[in-house]
């Protein structure tokens, strides 16, 4: 589904990502783990089209999308649950979800999706007329995921979705990611919580200062003593 070749990302002179290559197949749940500042978010931002690729190519379902804008990529079926959630704080819950379904022209389909998201996250339904910024951290994360699901993108990019949540919600978020994948969504998950991420992913990549140090089946990475020492707390 997604094929990334020699992707390099720069901010001015600073090279954040040094030519990484990876693939995400249909239906896979892939994780990129690594420390803060390793370049994980830069990769996702470039995949979504927030950040231009300095070098390399991004191909989605055989079509090169390296130079498309974010809204063009959204139309081709990429959705993002970004770092920091990025909700529209002054809009209410329902308006945030409607923005998630911005590309849907058919009103009844929009309503159907809305009901599906409310069914998955009942707490959002009870807060539908509340401003997004007044929700708790966990509820905001549910809304951010729900907003992404509104557009029903086949490929979902998730950036640090468990960051800053209470342990109860961390469990919940990982459960939902796994569930979405089992329902057929292809997911690329960027995480600092390596243990949890590897426990639900099929395959993983370990990013260190802009390069992949290790890659492979999630179980292999979990069993790798070096990965264990550096990322899994021994």
């Amino acid at each position, binding site marked *: 589904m997604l094929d990334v070749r020699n992707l390099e990302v720069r901010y001015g002179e600073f090279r954040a990502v040094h030519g990484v290559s990876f693939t995400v197949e249909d239906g896979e749940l892939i994780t990129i783990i690594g420390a803060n500042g390793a370049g994980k978010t830069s990769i996702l931002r470039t995949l*979504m*089209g*927030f950040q231009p690729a300095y070098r390399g190519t991004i191909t989605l379902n055989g079509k090169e999308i390296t130079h498309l*804008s*974010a*809204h063009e*990529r*959204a*139309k081709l079926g990429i*959705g*993002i649950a*970004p770092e920091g959630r*990025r909700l*529209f*704080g*002054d*809009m209410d819950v329902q*308006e945030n979800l*409607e*923005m*998630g379904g*911005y*590309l849907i022209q058919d009103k009844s389909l929009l309503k159907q999706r809305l009901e599906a998201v409310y069914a998955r996250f009942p707490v959002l339904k009870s807060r539908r007329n509340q401003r997004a910024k007044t929700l708790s951290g966990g509820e905001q994360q549910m809304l951010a995921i729900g*907003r992404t699901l509104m*557009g029903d993108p086949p490929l979902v990019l998730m950036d640090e979705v468990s960051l800053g949540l209470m342990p109860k919600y961390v469990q919940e978020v990982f459960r939902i990611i796994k569930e979405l994948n089992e329902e057929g969504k292809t997911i690329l998950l960027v995480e600092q919580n390596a243990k949890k991420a590897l426990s639900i992913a099929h395959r993983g990549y370990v990013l260190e200062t802009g390069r992949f140090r290790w890659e492979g089946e999630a179980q292999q990475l979990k069993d790798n003593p070096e990965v264990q020492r550096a990322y899994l707390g021994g």
Partner: protein
Amino acid sequence: MLGQQLINGFTIGSIYALIALGLTMVYGVLKILHIAHAGVYAMGAYIGLWVYRLVPNLFLAMLAAMFLSGVAGILIERFLYKSMLDKSRIVPLIASIGLFIAMEETFRIIAGPYVKAFSVHFRQKPWILGSARISAPQMLVFGVTIVLLVLLWWVITRTRMGKALRAVSMDREMADALGVATEKIILLSFFISSALAGAAGVLVGVFYNSVYPTMGDIPAYKALAIIVLGGMGSIPGTILGAFLIGISETFLIGYVNVPLPRDALAFIVMIAVLMFRPYGLLGKE
């Protein structure tokens, strides 16, 4: 006396609101201070006057002024600001001041440096409410302002495009990722902003029976005071700020013997509010 001051204050406030709303909307989507907005306002007054002299129909003059001002706004975004968005904020600000001066000079060259009368004969008699009276031009100002504010409110809260506009002003990148063609939405916000300024230009022209090249000078900085007071980028805050400034001006002039020009008062009110609410009335950190 009190009632009359209030009516006068609301009249001035209405005009300020129409001008400052555009400034706040542009700030919301692009985070730049669009000083040339006051030039668009003066342009609206000239267009209104010109059309009114061709066809003495105020409604038509207003529509033409709004539409052409809106188009001018789109051209300004497209050909001036668009290329500067990745530069420091000071670059579009200076370009905007430059454009504003150029526009004023263009009005002077085309229409002459003198004040032109925008005389409209109203058949409507003033309404008398106790000791206060609402003149026909005031009714026009209120009527147009109410209609435009309701329309704006409807667009930004009820339509898909309007919601996208709010989303872009809250987080442009995220709106883009959800499929919003943000560049089109920015052009839309320039069109709406500039059309509101054009309407304000016509109202002021008619209300004071005068149109002149530098009529945008005072609104240029007063609108800044208003949007800072209201909380940069906040539409309800700007409306509140505009009426607060309009009413405080009339009251301070009417009741207190302030040894300052009227136009300095906006800044005194702004400073007073910012001491207690540093992000403005409805602004956020």
